[in-house]
């Protein structure tokens, strides 16, 4: 069966991609359980004793934080979700350039994820016989937004790389924990552009012949699944989960 989400050719089937995706999701889920179990060693309340290291303890404690009232800071969950998590107001207050960098990465990444998931959803429908929208047509429809948000992501990544390389205090404080995150992003973005360029024969193909498109796309999908899903719980990428939860638990922060 043909796989429409960027790959073509008989060598890489939808089934193969599903298996790889589930492996990535499995690694992600395993890592998240390890993390939540680690967090679950914490006490359930202020000044309490260590718990047994269960993700249930973490979830219960997190919910108790959501329910408790702050002394002077504290805002409705919806306000926190919109202003502090989606619009990242706390970063904007501190550094507009860093906010622009982060919001472009966030918007680019999340929108590409949603677009990919949409493509995946319609492929599943196609697979089970619901022909609401032809996957091939959908892929063409999504080409433009995919391109736009890829460039938005690229802008953010370029700024991030620039900061790490050329802003002295940022460069000097960079450790492997930071570099791996950025390196992953760079690999995902570059492989994405190159594989698409090879497929369409555009600028980013660098003149590489079209037959190389499937393996290039395959490589891009593999590194994307690795860095964007599987590796999240084991690296600085965990902040994409822990930071919003922290902001929610602390009601928008101080």
């Amino acid at each position, binding site marked *: 069966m043909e796989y429409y989400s960027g790959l073509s050719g008989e060598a890489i089937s939808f089934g193969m991609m599903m298996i790889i995706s589930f492996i990535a999701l499995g690694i992600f889920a395993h*890592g998240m359980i*390890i*993390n939540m*179990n*680690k*967090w*679950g*060693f*914490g*006490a*359930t*309340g*202020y*000044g*309490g*004793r*260590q*718990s047994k*290291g269960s993700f249930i*303890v*973490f979830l219960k*404690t*997190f919910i108790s*934080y959501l329910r408790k009232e702050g*002394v*002077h*800071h504290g805002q409705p969950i919806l306000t926190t979700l919109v202003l*502090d998590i989606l619009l*990242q107001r*706390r*970063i904007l207050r*501190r*550094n507009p350039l*860093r906010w622009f960098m982060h919001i472009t990465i966030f918007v680019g990444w999340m929108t590409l994820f949603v677009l990919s998931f949409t493509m995946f959803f319609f492929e599943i429908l196609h697979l089970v016989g619901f022909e609401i929208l032809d996957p091939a047509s959908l892929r063409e429809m999504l080409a433009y937004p995919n391109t736009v948000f890829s460039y938005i992501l690229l802008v953010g990544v370029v700024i991030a790389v620039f900061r790490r390389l050329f802003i002295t*205090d*940022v460069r000097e*404080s960079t*450790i492997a*924990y*930071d570099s791996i995150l950025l390196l992953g992003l760079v690999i995902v973005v570059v492989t994405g552009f190159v594989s698409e360029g090879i497929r369409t024969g555009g600028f980013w193909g660098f003149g590489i012949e079209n037959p190389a498109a499937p393996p290039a796309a395959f490589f891009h999908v593999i590194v994307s699944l690795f860095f964007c899903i599987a590796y999240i719980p*084991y690296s*600085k990428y*965990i*902040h994409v989960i*822990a*930071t919003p*939860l*922290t*902001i929610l*638990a*602390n009601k*928008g*922060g*101080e």
Partner: protein
Amino acid sequence: MAKGTPSITCDNLTAVQLMELDACTRCGECVKWCPTYDASGQEPGLAPRDKILRWREFMNKSYGLRARLFGPKEISDEEIDLFKTDVYSCTTCGMCGTVCESGINTIELWECMRANLVERGNGPYGKQNMFLKLITEYHNPYMMDPKARLDWVPPDVTIADKAEYLYFGGCTAEYRQKKLAFATARVLNKLGIDFCMLGEDEWCCCSALIRTGQHEKEEIARRAARANVEAIKKTGATKILYACAGCYRTSIVDWPRLLGEELPFEIIHIAEFLEDLIKQDKIKWEASVDKTVTYHDPCHLGRHVGIYDPPRYVLDNIPGVKFIEMDRIKENQRCCGAGGGVKAGIPDLALGVAETRVQDALKKNPDILSSACPFCKRNLSDGRDSLGAKELEVEDIIVLVAEALGIPLDDCVET
């Protein structure tokens, strides 16, 4: 450490706080604003994000994936000791939490890390070790006779046996900076506010114990909170006034948490109380202060609890006061350096921070650097003296209010 046993426990750190360690994006905002990192000559270990990174590594070595697969990795005593020094070199001013892009509640994180280290036998730091013994024995950290709590009260001050208002004096104002207690009591008398006090039934609020991570040790902080709450209840007072930012913060934030219950009375800082009276036009000023005054937000009143405007409103309304702001104010205020046990534990660092804050004030050329906290007054005064800026007066706002009400304080002798 027995083989297979983690070097650290997670006692005193909540599950959400452990998650917060993974929420840090190392953006570095906290480093830019940290007053002790700055005053230490930018000692890397004092940077808040570095402390978060190290505890995260401790956690991963002890409870992370690797630890699950191969057993916990030992953390050396040297590493823990170094970490202790760094985490105690923090005034818990909360500036890092205010600027944290991940919204980490750093004040509680540092306090809970300290509590964990106290439990482990590493903390507290230096002279902070004495707090527990002194408060247990004397109910105050100054080794003063509890029966002498009200010895400062001058003959002209009237304290009721029972009243709607209770003035919680606090150890520092009652035993050391008596001018603050004199001014508060006389201002209340002058305004016709009947108030009672706890006298020898008053225990230390235990701010110093809590900030240095000793709040669970021998249950002293909890016992003190209980003793104070029960003693207040006995007086029948429903509105408790504080002129000490440390006592105020501890009463409004820590006591309910320690006791696991809401307090059956209202906690009011004297600045809030005076603001209210001024708005009701119940204060008749009698003298003009005629000074240029700037205001330093105490961390315990400002960032910790969010009281920024009442002290400014009071100062703005004192006749003759020309109120000016420093560059770093309110939630961006720079700490005076006294908090978090640093004044007792690492006085040189406290002085360094104070000097920087006094320099903030000197840039505006005020006559008076005011605050609403006896610890800020003490440390800012030390900073002023260290800089040789003798022309700058450091004074509490309640003393300025007393002056504007024509209340003499010359008879107050501080020890």
